[in-house]
């Protein structure tokens, strides 16, 4: 008898795999990771290492000893969650808080729902919001980054030696969104605010804006986006619809009263908007599968983000907006795709 392999068609595969997709996302995250380490120094690296190790470890332990299955960490999805979680945290995050975040992300948001592909909410964002509510002080202790590219901050490193003599590489400050929110609430205008604070778009683009690790540089995120698009990991629809919605929403407000509203570019460049639009709103499992669903999802994130930014209690609303829209994904997935063709068309 001949030994033959028998299986139904197709007999070839694209060689694409979950692991390869995750590897591409990790590569796409590298510019943001490197920029954050460059601008915020070793403490940024520490947050990233603790977060990634924590997420991988938590997943391994749960799958291996609680679910008693073969470990799934080799698919690299826990590494991606760890990296994204780290980028959502301030540089000054204590290690125990980061680890708590890992348990919230992997343990609660991911594995409780059945693991990869089954979670309703983006794990990294669940962890971020969990930490934001549990540790509001640590989570909003924004550090001022000390770039050597900013002459006005050259003096800073000297004063950064702490009381015990240990080297701190950051000092605390407020995010541009926080400055605007508080300032406008206190009756100041955009003009006075930009005179009192450094709100330079140039700095936002290249680096050292105060905030979470991932908010360090818009350019680094855009590099990651370009890579993801090039490798066809994501389609531009979701990020584009989020960004366009935010720009339009902010634009309308700005046109009605430029003195009391930041311009669209400010809203696009600040906070976690780009990080969220590129790396978190595009998470396969927690975003819709049809183009129309993706469009509604993206527009929804943009609108909710702006509502929170303008009228909410928090200066930033991207995380809440994405989680809110995550909850609608099962409904959005009910949308049937446009049928192939119902009637005969004569072109």
């Amino acid at each position, binding site marked *: 008898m001949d030994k033959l*392999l028998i*299986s*139904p068609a197709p007999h*070839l595969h694209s060689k694409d795999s979950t692991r390869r997709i995750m590897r591409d996302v990790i590569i796409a995250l590298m510019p943001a990771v490197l920029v954050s380490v460059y601008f915020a120094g070793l403490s940024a690296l520490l947050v990233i290492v603790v977060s990634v190790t924590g997420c991988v470890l938590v997943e391994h332990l749960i799958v291996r000893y609680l679910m008693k299955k073969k470990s799934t960490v080799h698919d690299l999805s826990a590494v991606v969650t760890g990296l994204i979680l780290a980028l959502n945290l301030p540089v000054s995050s204590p290690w125990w808080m980061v680890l708590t975040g890992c348990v919230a992300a992997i343990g609660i948001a991911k594995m409780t729902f059945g693991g990869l*592909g089954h979670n309703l909410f983006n794990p990294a964002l669940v962890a971020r919001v969990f930490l934001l509510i549990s540790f509001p002080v640590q989570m909003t202790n924004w550090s001022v980054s000390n770039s050597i590219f900013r002459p006005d901050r050259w003096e800073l490193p000297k004063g950064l030696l702490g009381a015990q003599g240990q080297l701190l590489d950051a000092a605390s400050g407020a995010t541009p969104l926080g400055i605007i929110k508080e300032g406008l609430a206190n009756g100041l205008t955009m003009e006075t605010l930009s005179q009192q604070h450094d709100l330079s778009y140039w700095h936002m683009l290249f680096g050292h804006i105060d905030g979470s690790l991932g908010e360090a540089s818009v350019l680094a995120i855009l590099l990651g986006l370009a890579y993801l698009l090039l490798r066809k990991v994501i389609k531009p629809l979701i990020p584009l619809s989020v960004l366009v919605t935010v720009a339009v929403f902010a634009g309308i407000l700005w046109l009605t009263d430029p003195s009391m509203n930041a311009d669209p570019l400010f809203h696009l460049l600040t906070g976690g908007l780009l990080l969220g639009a590129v790396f978190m709103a595009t998470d396969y499992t927690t*975003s819709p599968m049809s183009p129309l669903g993706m469009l509604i999802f993206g527009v929804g994130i943009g609108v909710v983000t702006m509502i929170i930014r303008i009228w909410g209690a928090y200066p930033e609303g991207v995380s809440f907006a994405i989680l809110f829209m995550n909850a609608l994904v099962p409904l959005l997935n009910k949308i049937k*795709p446009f049928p192939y063709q119902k009637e005969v068309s*004569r072109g």
Partner: protein
Amino acid sequence: MSKTFSIGGIHPNDRKFSRDHPIEEFPIPKRVFLSMNQHLGMPAVPVVQKGDMVKVGQLIAEPAGFVSAPIHASVSGTVSDVALYPDFLGKKVLTVVIDTSGDDWLESIDRSSEIKHEITDTPQEIFKKISEAGIVGLGGAAFPTHVKLTPLEGMKAEYLILNGAECEPYLTSDYRLMIEHGQEILIGGELMRRVLGDVRGIIGIEENKPRAIELMRKHAAHFLQWEVVPLKKRYPQGGEKQLIDAVLGRKVPSFSLPVSTGAVVQNVGTAYAVYEAVQKNKPLISNVLTVTSSDPSIQRNYHFRTGTPVREFLNAAGAPEQDGTLRFAKVVNGGPMMGKAVANLDGAVMKSTSGLLLLTEKETKRQEPGECIRCSKCFQACPMRLQPYLLYQLALAGRTEALEEHRVFDCIECGCCLYSCPAHLPLLDQIRLARNVSLKNKRKK
């Protein structure tokens, strides 16, 4: 600008290794196995008995109805058996076995290589010759050609599209046929065009075959009604519905025949067979196939007699080792995307066999399936705009009604979903299974 279809599709590496190998005449086998199931529709009914002497081209089985096709002897010799034999899939089918002696052809068949340009037959005579020659669609589906050329009430054909897309990776038999017998293909196309009435003729060829496009354009210049349309390289462009969409921008509705869009599609190989049947009186007893693999020594195109056992091709190609074991893990009858895995090497190739593809375990072995990560790559790849991930779940749950609601019967089984799935889920396998179960239930009712 080259055209293409509008929804889904994939871009596999085309691996047309054998494209520059001219068609060789494959040696006549000592024995042929002619299955009565070489076409879609009712199996043919044998008209010969054990012990009968037959000549090449002689009728050995009659069609069992309108949607059926006759079968002719592909070699001369003695009918040694008319019984159930396992075909290449291992399924037992009624088979006429002929032991070859010599190569004695029917005298009515014109065996000269001279091209006969002049068309003397009326459309009725052409139609009769096509149906009597046992011609079936040589693109793979093997649907009897005369049925597709028969007008249906309320549907008027406006276009005849010759399918030269050959979008399956590896296969080069249609390409070689266009390069070496382009004129005959056009005459065959013109014959079918006349049967359909005054319709326009279009030849669709993918861009990865520039020489074929150039040559067919040159030949088409001699005909008023014909033009060549270059197509972008994309799978499954050669699918009937995708080709109509690519060439005419018209979509075939669910549960409708392609002709409802005004287009009739025939493969270029079929056109060549029509030329031979009408102009040379030769029934469909031979075809061209590609025997290929990633091993450069096994990359050929052969003109073969139908009913030749698969093993003969493998032996000729040097596929087995000296101790007789096969160097490859899988033999595919057809292309890698839609072809069927050969289970029985003693089974024979058929009228519509376009290739024998030899794959190593590394090339073809399926990976362990993981979890669906909802990436929607299957949805993006599906040329029928189905939601394979959803159909897969519904199939596993056995929800027949929901499957139908989500248009499972529109699936053309192109395999784009399974090819694209990063989690290696057996999407098409489950969808196909569920659909067959659902079809069976329908028939019972």
